[in-house]
Structures are given as C-alpha cells and as structure tokens.
C-alpha cells in the first residue's frame, strides 16, 4: 500500500500543476456554479423586478410563493405528476432491466437501444410530436397525459441504474431460492429486490426529479386548468415579470441538491 502512494507524491513533486492552470480551473469552476450563486440572494430581494444586486432583505417572495394559489397549485400538480410518473417508470424500468439481464442476443440489444432512445431524442422534437398526438387523444392538459409522457422519459434512468445494480447480482441465488421451493415472484420479493433496492431507489429518484423539472414537454401539454411548476416559472419570466420565481428557484435547487447529497451519502455508506 505504501509504495504506490509514495511514488504518487514524488510524481507530483517533480511535475506539479502550474499556478496558471490552477487559476484557469478555478475560473472554469466558477462558471459551472455561477447561476447557482445568483439564485439564492435573489430570493430575498424586496424589489418587484429582477434587478441585481437585489434590494433589501425580506422573506416576501417566499411568503408570496406559499400563499399565492397559482404557485401552490402548480407545485402540487408537479409533485403529483412526478410521483405518479416515477412510480410508473420505476415499475416498467425495473421489470425491463430484469427481463434484459444477461441477455446478449441481437433482439435484446435492439430492445435495450430502443428503451434508451428517448435519452438522445431532442426534447423539443418529442414535445411537438407528443403534443399533436395528445391533441387527438384528448390528453393535453390532463394528469394522465403528463404522467405518461414523463414516465416514458423516466424509464431509461431506471433501466440504467437497475441494470448496474444487477451487475453485482449472483444468479445462483435464484436457483438456490427456487430449489428451496420459492415460486418466482416470492424469490423476486425476498431475494432479488432487497439486493437491487438501491438501484431501484436511485432510478426512482432520478425519474422523479426528471419529471419534476421537465419543462419542454410540460410547456406543450399545459392547459389553463393544469400546469406544472416549471411552466409557472416560465410564465413568470415571459408573461408576468414576477420575482417569486427567485423563491421558487432557490427552493427547487436546495431540494434537488439535498436529495442528490443524501443519495451520494446513502450510496457510500451502503458500499462500505
């Protein structure tokens, strides 16, 4: 153990990262996090515009967010759609990952590629096609429409994370369970599922966040009676100039960051 570490240190001593490269990386790093740095101070402003630096300090925008019916309804709609879409995507994606596990034939490869295709399809192309078809099927502006569309784009995330969880799965356990008399479904519940639960949970959270934050398809499926939070945020910078978006943004950013950090933490603890 000691030898490689020593050689690494010596390497760095002989061949250190020059100061100008460090400065360059710091500047690029700043560019990565720049928008996040602006969101939170803006949310405490008292101004009725998007002016920066923000004026004063108050919780007015948060108060507005939690008392205004339009914002609250949009938030509730988003949570509802994201929960249902994540549920559907998780069930379909997990089943597909189990079905495809260790299959290597041409059909399996084709099915896997097909299931991943939505990840590389430009959101706008999908949104426009879905919008026109949903017009005919009377799904525009409905919970069903939102849930189906968001579940479809959530499936690849579940598929990838469950497939990677299955990577370390020993198939002999299935035979052991079967030889002890457990029917396949019982085997799934008692053996497979606990072992890949982290993959399923990760996939479910990604599907939830993807739906919760999806804006392009949501913009096309919106109706006066039903819209999600990102759509209301979009309205607040295009139609109304409503700085409540700053409060909404910092709430969403904080929540998503917290979820990601918890996920990382849980992941690390389970592994060690």
């Amino acid at each position, binding site marked *: 153990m000691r030898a490689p570490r020593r050689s690494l240190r010596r390497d760095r001593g002989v061949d250190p990262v020059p100061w100008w490269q460090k400065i360059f990386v710091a500047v690029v790093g700043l560019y990565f996090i*720049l928008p996040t740095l602006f969101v939170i101070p803006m949310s405490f402003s008292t101004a009725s515009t998007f002016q920066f630096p923000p004026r004063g300090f108050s919780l007015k925008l948060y108060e507005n967010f939690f008392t205004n019916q339009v914002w609250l309804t949009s938030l509730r709609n988003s949570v509802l759609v994201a929960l249902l879409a994540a549920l559907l995507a998780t069930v379909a994606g997990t089943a597909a990952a189990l079905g495809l596990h260790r299959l290597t034939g041409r059909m399996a490869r084709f099915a896997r590629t097909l299931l991943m295709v939505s990840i590389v399809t430009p959101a706008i192309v999908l949104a426009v096609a879905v919008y026109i078809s949903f017009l005919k099927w009377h799904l525009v502006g409905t919970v069903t429409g939102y849930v189906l569309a968001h579940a479809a784009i959530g499936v690849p995330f579940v598929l990838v994370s469950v497939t990677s969880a299955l990577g370390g799965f020993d198939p002999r356990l299935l035979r052991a369970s079967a030889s002890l008399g457990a029917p396949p479904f019982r085997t799934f519940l008692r053996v497979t599922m606990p072992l890949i639960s982290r993959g399923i949970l990760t996939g479910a959270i990604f599907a939830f966040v993807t739906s919760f934050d999806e804006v392009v398809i949501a913009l096309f499926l919106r109706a006066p009676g039903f819209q999600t939070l990102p759509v209301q945020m979009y309205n607040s910078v295009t139609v109304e100039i409503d700085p409540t978006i700053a409060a909404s943004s910092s709430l969403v950013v904080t929540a998503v960051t917290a979820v990601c950090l918890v996920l990382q933490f849980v992941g690390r603890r389970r592994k060690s």
Partner: protein
Amino acid sequence: MNTPDPARWRGPSPRWLLLVPALALLAAILLLPLGQSLFRSVGQGDWTLDHYARLFTDGVTLRVLARTAVTAAVVTVIAFALGYPYAYVMTRVGPRMRGVLLVIVLIPFWTSVMARNFAWIVILQREGPVHSFFRLFGLDVVLYGSVAGVTVAMSQVLLPFMVLPLFSALSGIDRRLLLAARGLGSHPLVAFWKIYWPLSRGGVVAGLILVFTLSLGFYVTPALLGSPKESLVAQLLGQRTTQLLDFAGAGALGMLVLVVTLVLVAWANRFGGTISAIGVVAAAPVKDRT
C-alpha cells in the same frame, strides 16, 4: 428434474413478458407520436416530399438551420477550450481535489432548468452584472436577447458533456510517456502535441460530437435568453406547431432534426463517448436537453 435456471434459459421465455410494460409505454408515447409525425410529414398517405422541399425553399428554415449550426459550433468550441484543460487538471490533482472538481462539474446537472435560465436572465440582463462590468470599460454590451447570451448559457450547461468523456479518456493516458519524451530531449509542448494529444483524440471527438448534437435541440434557453428575430431551430419547430398549426411542416422539420441527432449520436458512439456519457447522465439527472 432440476428447476429451470433463469440465467440459462434460452428461447421464447416468459422473461420477455417483463419488457411489455416498458415497451408499451415507449410505443405509445415515443414511437407512435413520432411515427404519426413522420406520416404527416410525407402527406398523410398522399406520399409527397413537398414538406421537406419547402424546408429548403421557404427562405426562413435554411437561415435558422444555419444559425443553429453556427451557434452549436461556437458552443462546442467554447466547451472544448474550457473543458480540455479542466479535464486535464482533473487527472493531475490528488484524489480529494479530484472529487471536488467532479462535484463542481456535476452541479449544472443538478441545477433546475428554470432556476438556471432565470439566473442567466439576471446575470445577462440590461443593468445586470455583466452589462455593468462591460460599462467599466466604456462598452455598452447587453448579452440578454442575443445569440451571444444564449451561447454563454448553453456552454455552461453543456460543459459536463465535454469534461466527462475527456476525463475518462485523459485518465487512461500514461504520463510517463511524456517524461520519456522529455528525457529524450523533446520540448514539453512538442511532447504534448506528439504524444498526449493523439492519445486523447478519442475522448475529444466524442465530447465534440456530443456537445454539438445536444446544442441542436435547445429550446428553453434560446426562447428565454435569445430574441425571436434570431430564433434557433427548436423555436421554429415550436412556433410552427403552436402558432402556425403547420403540423406537416413541423413534422418534416422535426424528422430532419431527429435524424441528424441520431446519426451524430451513433457516430459519437463509435468513439466510446456516448455510452459512458449516458451512464453519467443516468448517474446524475440531466435537466436541460432543452
């Protein structure tokens, strides 16, 4: 008789039934709408390519396509110029610093689409920080409402797609080759150019294609930060659908964008970039393919 081993089962097996829900969802939400879109674009059974011909003759679409391609190319160059050195330094620092740099790369993935675009409006608007900064030098530059502003915002969110494939390519390069070259009397820059750069080229090509491809489909960022007078292809697509109700024309344009995207992604795949990048996408929710 022993029980069937699910891992060894061959032939038509009930395992394929597990794929039914996902494939049904995909067929209903992805394949059917896109198929209908394709069908409309070729004349709903009258079999005509007029809608495609119109894209190249209406005078507007070609200009927008050219502007989109130029914008995507500029975004790609910026992402490369910033991403290559960043990925390079990531391979050089200690494990703890590398972890920090990786988390910073992933932050654009975590930041909500609308929050990020809102922040860019604040940063780039008239009287905003960037405008004030330029005025210190007596320049009256407002990036909000211009393709330049769109480019700045798009480069930020697409940088991870450049850095991650590059990092995976660069961390596979043995730096002792550089030491060997220098030991043989080569100038450091020559050693870099002749040895390091060729070895990194696979990751470079993957990153370039990936960023360029993703740039083509951006909708929210140009719609919020750009100007209707300088729209990009995604805006044109949206406008044809919701304002002009030209579903056939929108279908043709959508198919063109989709085919170009899929061809480029398949090409990037050959350099091993996309699969790993998609893995990363799945490891951290990507928010703005918008």
